[in-house]
């Protein structure tokens, strides 16, 4: 039980820190001192205390959606182990459950965006639905690669198997970690797929869906975003940890720094994709994750023969 609590605590640390690292990295690369490391937490606390304005076009669905969004993210979050620690929830096949919980969160926010009747939010919803649909196979392929290597279909079992891995498999696992980081870019709406800092609503995806949210709802959406980031960052770090047989004290900083630095650096160094190129970009990731799986399969076959 203590281990489970430690795991949850570490995951919370990861979730709270990633955004801080991203902000600091961007600031340093731009030559600024930047805001406080935990400024985003203060912002969220401020939002929790603020009032809300609801559009008269909306129905009750609009008010329930953020709670479903955050609720699904919280439950998915509880499934994720930090390296070889035991998560709070786990069962055979939970990798599928987590993927579908994230889909549930997505459906809630898409429907809420459609509920406002705003063309901007409809635009964001349509894009989110499309990218979400396309990224799903990439996620499943990456998870299947992990299942193939470790012989299990639950996160806890996959990452707790300390295995003597061949050097080739290490490379494949690093590629899996890379795929998870890219999936995080897409799911979190970061450059190169989406730019949360853009000033033009026409080009936004994730942020534009929440235009009509304020106060507590907005805070919920932000918190769910941190949790989702933590989920993908930790899985990526775990894949690396498995590859090198590292333990949790290595996976935690790796998750924070790996995700934070990569988002921060990519966002500072390159521009957002042209929107019409995003589909190609995501499909490339899908193809890549399928290729990683097939490569891994061939390698495993060779080793056994």
């Amino acid at each position, binding site marked *: 039980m203590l281990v489970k609590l430690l795991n949850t605590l570490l995951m919370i640390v990861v979730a709270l820190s990633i955004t801080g690292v991203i902000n600091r990295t961007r600031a340093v690369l731009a030559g600024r001192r930047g805001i406080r490391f935990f400024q985003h937490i203060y912002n969220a606390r401020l939002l929790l*205390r*603020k*009032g*809300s*304005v*609801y*559009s*008269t*076009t909306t*129905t009750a*669905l609009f008010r*329930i959606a*953020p*709670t479903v969004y*955050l*609720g699904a993210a*919280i*439950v998915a979050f509880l499934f994720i182990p930090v390296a070889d620690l035991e998560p709070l*929830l786990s*069962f*055979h*096949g939970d*990798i*599928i*459950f987590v*993927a579908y919980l994230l*889909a549930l969160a997505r*459906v809630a926010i*898409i*429907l809420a*965006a*459609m*509920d406002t*009747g*705003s*063309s*901007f939010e409809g635009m964001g*919803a*349509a*894009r989110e*639905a*499309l990218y979400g*649909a*396309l*990224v*799903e*196979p990439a*996620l499943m*392929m990456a998870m*299947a690669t992990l299942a*193939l290597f470790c012989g*299990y*279909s639950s996160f806890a079992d996959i990452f707790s198997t300390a295995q003597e891995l061949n050097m080739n498999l290490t490379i494949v696992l690093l590629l899996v970690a890379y795929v998870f980081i890219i999936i995080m870019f897409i799911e979190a709406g970061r450059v190169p797929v989406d730019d949360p800092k853009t000033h033009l609503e026409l080009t936004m995806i994730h942020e534009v869906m929440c*235009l*009509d949210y304020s*106060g*507590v709802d907005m805070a*919920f959406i932000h918190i769910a975003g941190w949790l989702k980031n933590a989920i993908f960052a930790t899985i990526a770090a775990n894949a690396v940890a498995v590859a090198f047989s590292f333990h949790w004290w290595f996976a935690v900083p790796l998750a924070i720094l790996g995700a934070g630095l990569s988002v921060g650096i990519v966002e500072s160094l390159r521009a957002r994709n042209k929107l019409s190129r995003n*589909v190609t970009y995501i499909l490339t990731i899908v193809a890549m994750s*399928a290729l990683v799986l097939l490569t891994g399969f061939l390698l495993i076959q060779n080793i056994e023969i």
Partner: protein
Amino acid sequence: MMYLYSLLAAVLLIVAIFITPVKHKVWVATGIIAAAAMAAFGIALTVFSRGTEMTIAEFSTPIFGAEHFSVDMLSSLFLVIISIASLATVLYSRGYVAGYLKTLSPAHISLHYTALVLLVVSMMLVVTSSGGFSFLFTWELMTIASFILILFEAKRQDVRRAALNYLVMMHIGFMFLVVGFVLLSNVTGSANFEAIEQYFKIANPLPLFVILFIGFGMKAGVFPMHIWLPEAHPAAPSHVSAIMSGVMIKTGVYGIIRLLQSIDHNTELLYTIGLIVLLSGIVTGLWGVILAAMQNDIKRLLAYSSIENVGVILIGLGIAAVGHAAGSSLIGMCGICGALLHTVNHSLFKTLLFFSAGNIYSKLHTTAMNQMGGIAKHMPVTAILMLLGTVAICALPPLNGFISEVLIYIGMFNGVSDGHEVLYSVAGIFSLSLIGGIVVLAFTKLYGVVFLGSPRSTHVAESSEVDNLRIGAMAIPAVLILFIGLFPQFAIHPISLVAEAITGADNYIALEHFIPTLQTISAICWVLLAVVILLYLLKRHLQGKSKVTEGPTWGCGFTAVNTKMQYTGESFAEGLESIGKPLMKDTVDGRAVDKGEIFPSPHQYNIRHKDKVDSLLGQWWVQMMHRINKFVMRLRTGRVNNYVTFALVFLVAVLILTLVGIL
């Protein structure tokens, strides 16, 4: 003597429908269907509790010899599905048909209800028939009954066209079945389903399998034989679409399962056939879902989604067969349980969704999505029920669609992690996840455009909630969706018994693996609900301290917002168009606004994404007939002397041929 009595009873019941006053015909039909459903339910329960086959009637047919109607595990599962859906359908039909009582003649209404009763009874007979003549007879009865049901609004030309199209397609499928059963009877001396196993042992199994697979696939809507579905469903009244899409196409799935059941002992054959089923499932699923996402008509979208769901069921069956052949009974069990449960689930949420579409159609008299919007405010109960169906069909926790898909996934992930048939499992996972993703796109589009936002036409404001009986009828599938989703461990028990009967394997694997997993899933779904409710309470608490106000939707600084500016169904799926383009052929009426037009004039623009298979299968032979016709028409000159010449040429030709000795 027994047949005479049952025939007499049938005639009496039909007469009863015809002579009752027009308002009460529905109750006669309800009575008959309820009685049939109760009987079927009772038989199914008996079979389940005893675990043995139960023969209802035995008889001899002139063509294929001895046949019987009997109920085994698989039949009883389908009997339950048919009973529930048909009961909900007939209850729903009262409110829907009530709108037509003044415009249609009483005989028309009587015919409709007679056909509905006939459809229900024939479906029940199809799934209990032993094969051969009685199967073909009831199968044909089912086709004709549904044909009459589609023709409800026979005054509309598109309805007549769709119904005829349906009838032709079904008869092509029927011909395949006839050929298959005759072949079977020629080789083995019996046309019963049990004889297929024997046939597979003594003769080359693949031709028979392919012939019967095409015959059943035509009903089930397997690619490329799916094209009747998106035509027939928009034409049929909604309760008919519900029963056809929810249940009738499942009789095709039933046939395919019977086929798979017959190849239990031949591993190599099972493997090959499993692959065929898996591949056709993948193609059907992907084709169905991409086209579903592109549709702008509610019922056409739902029809394509039925095709996609048949694809998912076939993926489950295919992976089960492949896994079974490879020696992993766990994959086999997961696949088949998932496929069977998905069959049940789809019959529930698809009836619910078609009922919702019917509610909208009966108030707005259109199924064009882009004229709707904001209906949730006018029809709140329908909106909630439709949301339930939407979440269920997107296979999201905590509802039933998720349970069946997760079983198929678990089977495939076990294949990957245990190293059994990794490549096929990966293909299955890939396509199932892509299908799952695009389903979300298709149904958020449907729900978002129809129920949410602001109204796109003035009709919406005039709509109101439907009568309570219709809501009650919709509650039947809704409650079952919730039950299977939240208590899957109970729902899986009968399913695993059926799966055990099909595969002949011991179901301790299933019990050992599924039940704990499903119990956990159920518990976590409750946790999810609890978390969401707690968060909502927390939010209410936090908002209690601060000011909550209402205002217009934020227009990003633009104040002259018009409801027509909202995202439409077409624009919502725009991004997918580039991927779906090779599958479709667009037909455009009118002209789009030119980019150079600074002050655009009013334009009419209507685009429809047509299935490419439709044009490939439906049109090339029509064109060829046209060409042949044109050639033949040249001979029709209208001059008597020419015709006399033709007659002379014919006679001379006959003479010469006789002399040479050919004739």
